[in-house]
């Protein structure tokens, strides 16, 4: 299995190459520099592995949620490469990637993944590690104020992502005894998207390049966009 992955959903920009279970990664926290960095990152990974696009099985990208413009950069790059190299695309949730990061780094298998959504809200997903490379969403991902996030059953849950850095106290109060610990410093990474993408690919979840689309979760954008109209990227 050979798969290239990219993510530009948050302040981080990353790319990863998965070749027969081994992962190479480029990762940089670089707000507003995604467009500049992402293709050179992918290029350097292929160079390092001595691979060309035609030798890949699929392309995976962080489909969101996250910053709207960043999601479209990832989707646009995925669409362009996939069409050009005739590759199937695997859209991967950035919340699942956060959850998998917690699994990879700390062995957590019950993760409350949250990304700060600004305007007093969080993007939220409840994830369970099923086996290596597979995180299963419990219920549905959503965007809502931290005071009312959906709460999982049971105990031992670990909180991961910037939602916890911004609203840790509120979320901890909401979760009560279900929560074991949390860390708010992690961002979605392409290495996790690559591993999850490979699992989804094997499960037959790859799509046509035209279906490589962002999942914003926040779909009421007109009223709140009045102030962001020409300011550029969020």
């Amino acid at each position, binding site marked *: 299995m050979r798969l290239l992955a990219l993510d530009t959903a948050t302040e981080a920009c990353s790319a990863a190459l998965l070749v027969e279970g081994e992962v190479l990664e480029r990762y940089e926290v670089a707000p507003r520099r995604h*467009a500049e*960095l992402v*293709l050179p990152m992918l290029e350097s990974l292929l160079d390092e592995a001595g691979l060309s696009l035609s030798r890949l099985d699929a392309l995976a990208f962080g489909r969101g949620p996250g910053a*709207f413009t960043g999601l*479209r950069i990832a989707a646009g790059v995925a669409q362009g*490469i*996939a069409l*050009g190299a005739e590759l199937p695309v695997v859209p991967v949730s950035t919340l699942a990637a956060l959850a998998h990061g917690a699994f990879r780094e700390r062995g957590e298998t019950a993760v409350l993944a949250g990304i700060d959504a600004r305007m007093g809200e969080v993007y939220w997903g409840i994830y369970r590690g099923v086996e290596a490379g597979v995180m299963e969403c419990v219920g549905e991902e959503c965007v809502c104020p931290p005071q009312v996030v959906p709460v999982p059953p049971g105990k031992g849950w670990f909180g991961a992502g910037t939602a916890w850095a911004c609203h840790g106290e509120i979320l901890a109060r909401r979760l009560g005894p279900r929560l074991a610990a949390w860390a708010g410093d992690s961002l979605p990474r392409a290495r996790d998207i690559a591993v999850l993408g490979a699992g989804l690919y094997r499960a037959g979840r790859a799509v046509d390049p*035209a279906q490589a689309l962002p999942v914003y979760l926040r779909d009421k954008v007109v009223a709140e966009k009045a102030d962001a109209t*020409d300011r550029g990227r969020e």
Partner: protein
Amino acid sequence: MRVLGIETSCDETSVAVYDSETGIVAHEIYSQQTLHAAYGGVVPELASRDHIRKLLPMVRGVVREAGGRESLQGVAYTAGPGLIGALLVGVAVGRSLAWAWGLPAVAIHHMEGHLLAPMLEPVPPAFPFLALLVSGGHTLLVRVGGLGDYDILGDTLDDAVGEAFDKTAKALGLPYPGGPALEALARGGDPARFTFPRPMTDRPGLDFSFSGLKTHVLQTLCRSDASPQARADIAAGFQQAVVETLAIKCRRALRETGLRQLVIAGGVGANQALREKLQAVVDEEGAALFYPRLEYCTDNAAMIAYAGWLRLARGERCPASFNARARWSLASLR
């Protein structure tokens, strides 16, 4: 040589293939107009969301129509000026596609595309020429010496012509987009009933100002009975004031530069009254008028593919590192 062009700078998604031997071989434009009509103007986030859904199927269709990927030698995309989020969709897809194909890519300035659009016509102008660039975001008089040789002779100090048209149309209660609606309303109006100023024509120079004219329209409307006839008369008077103002400056620019070819480009270039008036001006001045056909007046990828071919043929290449620019001065191009 064949170049794929992509345009997503505002509310049109467009893809084209230009062939240096035969001209445009495939071209599609999708307008988001109905999407934004309910909001009375372009909503940037909605525009971006629509571009990312529509662009790839259009690229596929146009490439297929042009005879497939093997016939292409380069990719060009609008990288600015425009709505940053909308631009980034076209840039990301276009640059990545070229990267995967192993083809050279070039970033194109949207207004350069408009400036060069008349070159796609059977009888094109020859360098150097004078260009009046009129759109929703720009009002420029430019001396075009050649590719990348743009001398800005006049610019608007406030509103662009298209903006003045849209705002006036809104004041008159016309639906978005206001320009064409205002032109239609003006046809049944008496331009002489109300007098409107010809801003900045009584002083030397080639700059424009249209915000005062818009205010004048509002005041005239308040003082009138606002009947359908009064609205039509105001529309006609406003349009005539704009057209004459542009004509006065074009005549002045032709005389000052000694150029004998005038090009009208940009969305407002589709205005029939403007074309007729400028035709009269060039006839009197012993000059010639050039304008692109209607589909190359609005935002389109044909002009981007064409400008892309010129730049690629000159050896220009963009690195894998891409970007888009909301603001980008035409005069900074080389």
